[in-house]
């Protein structure tokens, strides 16, 4: 299988605090990978290293055959290949829904306004937010904001979508609408790396589950293995805690 992201011996420390230790893992094209683990285990940090919001302190991140940690690698261009969805949405407060999905296409990808709006509308329709193009972020509910954030990321036509606990900041009744959108994206063959605490969802959509603990990958495999018959004690313990 063609590897899109290939991470080798990745380390990340904040000061003398080692947050990621010798992390090795990869994501193949079209694969949906769910990253699980307890709070503080380094899931967000790993995701943020992949689009260089954090700078790793060691190891390699190979993206489509190129090491993105090379000094002369174009960081901005690399980031356009990855769509990032944050726990706290982070919609641009000064722009309405449509402009949120257009501004990156225009300024970074240099698309024409017309082309950018057409593309944005396509994805806003997919997430069910095409009727709200004139609304400002402050006028939307959490679930609506997150769906716009997903459309914004998709509008850049990324190769891989990264999700960092996209439903954790949502009221329970809004979790479903966001997961529904993500399920659809998974079904359509998008490559996705998802940090989540939604175990049912992970079991359903993931091709592979990766369990992290204290900065290392403890166990990975298909959901039927990791979530149902885990090998490691730490995984068992974590599942016992989260599933009850």
């Amino acid at each position, binding site marked *: 299988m063609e590897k899109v992201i290939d991470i080798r011996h990745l380390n990340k420390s904040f000061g003398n605090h080692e947050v990621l230790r010798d992390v090795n893992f990869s994501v193949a094209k079209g694969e949906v990978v769910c990253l699980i683990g307890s709070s503080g285990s380094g899931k967000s940090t790993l995701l943020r290293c992949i689009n260089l919001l954090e700078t790793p302190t060691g190891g390699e991140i190979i993206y489509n055959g190129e090491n993105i940690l090379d000094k002369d690698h174009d960081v*901005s261009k690399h980031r*356009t290949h990855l769509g990032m969805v944050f726990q*706290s949405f*982070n919609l*641009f407060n*000064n722009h309405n829904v449509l402009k949120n999905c257009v501004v*990156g296409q225009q300024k970074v990808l240099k698309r024409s306004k017309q082309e950018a709006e057409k593309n944005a509308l396509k994805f806003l329709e997919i997430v069910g937010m095409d*009727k*709200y193009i*004139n609304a400002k972020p402050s006028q939307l509910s959490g679930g609506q904001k997150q769906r716009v954030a997903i459309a914004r990321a998709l509008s850049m036509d990324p190769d891989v979508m990264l999700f960092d606990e996209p439903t954790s900041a949502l009221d329970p009744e809004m979790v479903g609408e966001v997961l529904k959108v993500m399920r659809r994206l998974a079904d359509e063959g998008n490559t996705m790396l998802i940090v989540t605490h939604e175990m049912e969802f992970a079991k359903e959509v993931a091709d592979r589950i990766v369990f992290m603990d204290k900065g290392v990958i403890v166990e990975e495999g298909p959901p039927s293995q990791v979530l149902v018959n885990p090998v490691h004690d730490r995984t068992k313990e974590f599942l016992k805690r989260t599933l009850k």
Partner: protein
Amino acid sequence: MSLESILSILEQNWPNYLKGAYITLLIAIFSTIIGALIGLFIGVMHTIPLRKKSFKSFLLKIVNFILSVYVEIFRGTPMIVQAMVVFYGIAAYGFVMDRFLAAILVVSLNTGAYMAEYVRGGIVSIEKGQYEAAEAIGMNHFQTMVHIILPQVIRNILPATGNQLIMNIKDSAVLSVISVTELFFVTKTIASINYKTADSYLIACVMYLIMTLTASQLLRLFEKKLDGPKDYNFQSDKKSA
């Protein structure tokens, strides 16, 4: 004081009063705009992320140090003294500056020093998530500032800028020390001729008040306009089809 005497002062001097008020307004408006731009520039310079140990970051540090010195000097001294130092200081080099331009220079520099702090505070108070979201779609620092951060900062410092405008309308009175023919200077001249000091200044007082009240009302309207309609336009099926 009597209404009669006030009316007679107005009758004889209204063109001068208006001219004085006009100069006051010009100084206040131009200086506030220029000062806000200075403040914006300094605020942006102070928040450029430094990459360790490059020549560029060394230069940036020096420039920022100079800018900080400027801010401290202009915030730490009275404008009336600044006006004297700037005007007579430049004159001492044999270059007599136009008094009106000197006034704009002094008030702008003074405003810029205050606005720099507001802008820096405004930039710092924008959530980290706004930067990260912009960077995550591939924007560089410059694009992030121009398209995402500064529009929000400008909106946030608008009330402070409005305050500054009102302060400038009032404080430009001190420029009379360098004989700028703004409202206070004009009033002083009128009073020195007619000896009706209280009445002459009462008229100036009302004119200042009219200017400041109008300014704050206009600014409030402007802010409302910027914020756009309270309700968004829901796109009906007919429209989107």
